[in-house]
């Protein structure tokens, strides 16, 4: 296996200056806000209708060269044309033509599982008139990597028997199943979920709302929306822009006692932007 097949995105031009923020501004906000607008999250939210395709943006494909790996293909349009972090930790800022697609190798899910998780996450945190959601943020990529990493297999959880599966919530999760197993089992009951329409998907999720699987999926969707892009989700810092979080900032010294009562929204920057990204995310540890 030579090289790291992180992206197969012909026609995608590197464009370090263009971020998701600019993309949305150009596509959606131009009418209302000029380019010096620093309050992007609010800008996105004030647009009455965002033209984001809600149909399935993920297309299944199978690589002949890499039979053992499964891929998800993300339509570049669906993720706003920009993907910041590649799987091997290298930074790539890609600005895509709208009809192009980006292929992402999966570490844990099968293609079908990936499609189901992507569809379910986007019903939990949907793309709608209030802005982009789990699909655009790449939440499924985040979840896939977490499950493939030490957390997914309970590397740091106390797993000695006996297990008391039905213990009260005050004891924390006492089950034997690892997050990987919870997902695998949960997904078996959601076969063809990604082919349902939105109302049917919502109905299917309501059926499992009280399950451990759903609570994990919901929690992981939040994490994938709002954790640093280094983990595969929150692509282009979509999640942070939506809520007005600027990411890690080395200093707020000059600002903390200003802006009382008004939104102060510095342009978001990821940990990599701030520190040069020397750290290794936990999901890449053994």
């Amino acid at each position, binding site marked *: 296996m030579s090289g790291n097949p992180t992206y197969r995105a012909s026609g995608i031009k590197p464009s370090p200056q263009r971020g998701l923020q600019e993309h949305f501004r150009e596509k959606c906000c131009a009418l209302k806000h000029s380019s010096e607008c620093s309050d992007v999250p609010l800008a996105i939210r004030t647009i009455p209708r965002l033209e984001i395709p809600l149909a399935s943006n993920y297309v299944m494909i199978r690589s002949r060269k890499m039979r053992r790996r499964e891929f998800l293909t993300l339509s570049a349009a669906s993720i706003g044309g920009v993907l910041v972090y590649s799987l091997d930790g290298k930074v790539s800022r890609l600005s895509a033509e709208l009809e192009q697609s980006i292929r992402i190798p999966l570490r844990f899910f099968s293609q079908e599982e990936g499609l189901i998780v992507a569809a379910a996450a986007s019903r*939990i945190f949907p793309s709608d008139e*209030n802005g982009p959601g789990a699909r655009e943020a790449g939440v499924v990529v985040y979840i896939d990597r977490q499950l493939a990493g030490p957390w997914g297999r309970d*590397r740091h959880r106390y797993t000695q028997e006996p297990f008391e599966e039905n213990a009260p919530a005050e004891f*924390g999760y*006492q089950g034997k199943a690892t997050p990987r197993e919870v997902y695998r089992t949960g997904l078996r009951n959601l076969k063809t979920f990604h082919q349902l329409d939105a109302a049917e998907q919502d109905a299917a999720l309501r059926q499992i709302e009280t399950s451990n699987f759903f609570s994990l999926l*919901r929690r992981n969707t939040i994490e994938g929306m709002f954790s640093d892009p280094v983990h595969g989700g929150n692509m282009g810092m979509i999640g942070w822009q939506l809520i007005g*979080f600027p990411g890690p900032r080395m200093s707020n010294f000059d600002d903390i006692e200003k802006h009382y009562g008004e939104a102060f929204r510095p342009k978001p920057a990821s940990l990599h932007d701030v520190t040069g990204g020397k750290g290794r995310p*936990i999901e890449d540890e053994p």
Partner: protein
Amino acid sequence: MKTLPSVDVVIVGGGWTGLLMAKELGSRTALSIVVLERGGPRKSDEYANDMDELDYSIRFRMMQDLSLETVTFRHSAAERALPLRQHGSFLPGTGVGGAGEHWSALSPRYLPDCFELYSRTIEKYGAARLPEDHCIQDWGITYAELEPHYKRAELLLGVSGKAGNIRGTQIEGGNIFEGWRSSEYPTPPTKVPYFSELFRQAANSVGYHPYPIPGATISQPYTNPDGVTRPGCTYCGFCETYGCMIGAKAQPTNTLLPLIAKRKNVSIRTGATVRRIVQDTSRKNGKARGVSYVDATGQEFFQPAELIFLASWTLNNTRLLFLSSIGEPYDPATGRGTVGRNLTHQVFISAATAFFEKPLNRFMGSGASGIMFNDFDGDVFDHSELPFLRGGPLLGRSARSLPVGGCDVLPKSVQAKWGSEWKKAMLDYYDRTGHIGFIGDHLAYKGNYMDLDATYKDQFGDPLLRLTLDWRDNERKMAEFAIQKAVELAHAMGAMEVSPSSGLKSYDASRYQSTHIQGGAIMGVSSERSVVNPFLQHWQIQNLFVLGASSFPQNASAGPTLTLLAQTYRTADAVVERYLKNPSALA
């Protein structure tokens, strides 16, 4: 097991107390000192890359690896204990610096009457007011005895704050209810975020006495008496569960290691998990000979030492005493025995969650920056007509605002848990939500204690520590009172909607509260009812000292770090000035 060359002093645990003792003995004596730390090494400059909420606050990168060892928990002796399989109500640290690396750095002193809680309470309210099941007792020291050491601890950390009582003179703008202080804080208060400013104005308008939270995330560059310089805080907001990327937050690695590194007589061995304190059965006076430990490769060692300090945090201190068969285990049925008694966990709640119309810019702040008031703390207010004893401060802090943990906190009016409505509420409320915190006393009860678990084992096959712990009506009613005051204050702050805390029911081990879990090897004036004497020296094994909050008989309404540092200074003085000259009982 390989026996190593003997050393003068072995210190078990490389956190705040262990490294402070290493620094004090290392610089004041020529003793050979070895610190055994089971986690890995750390450098003070390695934190630049840790501003990652997922890895540090959600996956708990700095905490103990529970796959190797955890504790079991039950509410009462009638219940079956289960292991805490993932981190929950407290977060044990590991590695050099221990939990002192990832604390919030709130640094208030305890109220003077905390140290004489039993005497003061019955003096004022009579013994009949004490809860039925209590085992409250005095510490065996007074605030006045500890005050000079509090001052040293504040100077060590460079605590930022505003004094409210200097030698009995009350000062407006500080905490007028605090115990007398011999001097002002080493550095001025930190800056005040918007939410905390709203809190201050509301507290003033109601007639309370708000003041800046004393914190070891310091307001300006500071050089401590040891010559160690740290920069001022930049309010990046990554404090609790993170190491400070610039070193503004006092941590053992940036405050104590610079001195320890210069001392040739002190060495720190990491990856060294101590399994037993080894007693000398041949000597009549009862001494310990050293400790046995396993290194990172699995090899076992015996480290002989003349003097042993147990400084491995509340729970591990107590567990090592049990595993080493030192002292008599506490029996709740008879009240006999001392090891494991008086287990407490501070009442630490978000008393009211307030939702505002205006954005709060909550990403700016530090773990300790904010405003608090103590009008309902300790016995500052009269409890004659109230259905509980003690109390605690209410706090308007800027901490805990990162998005993964903070975005799903929504007003009760939002019913949806997922989907568009829920998403919209998250977007609307994320930066318009603030917490009014309450930190309250936890009294000691006969039924709250520790022992060894009969079922679950650690990586070596040793039994896990078992916690038996639940709230009583005193804490429940105290929390109820605080919640009511917090809700009133939230409205006075102009909140559009307020969610009161659901209060304390039974102890919830799954939800983070604080890491202020205490007791198990408590101090006192009687060897029948305590494990160590007022100098933290073991009553029976005179060359063994047990440092840290395992010695606190009750849990007070403030973070324990400053108090346990002050106690460690006091013990270091007693060891250097008295014990080394004449190794015998200090009390």
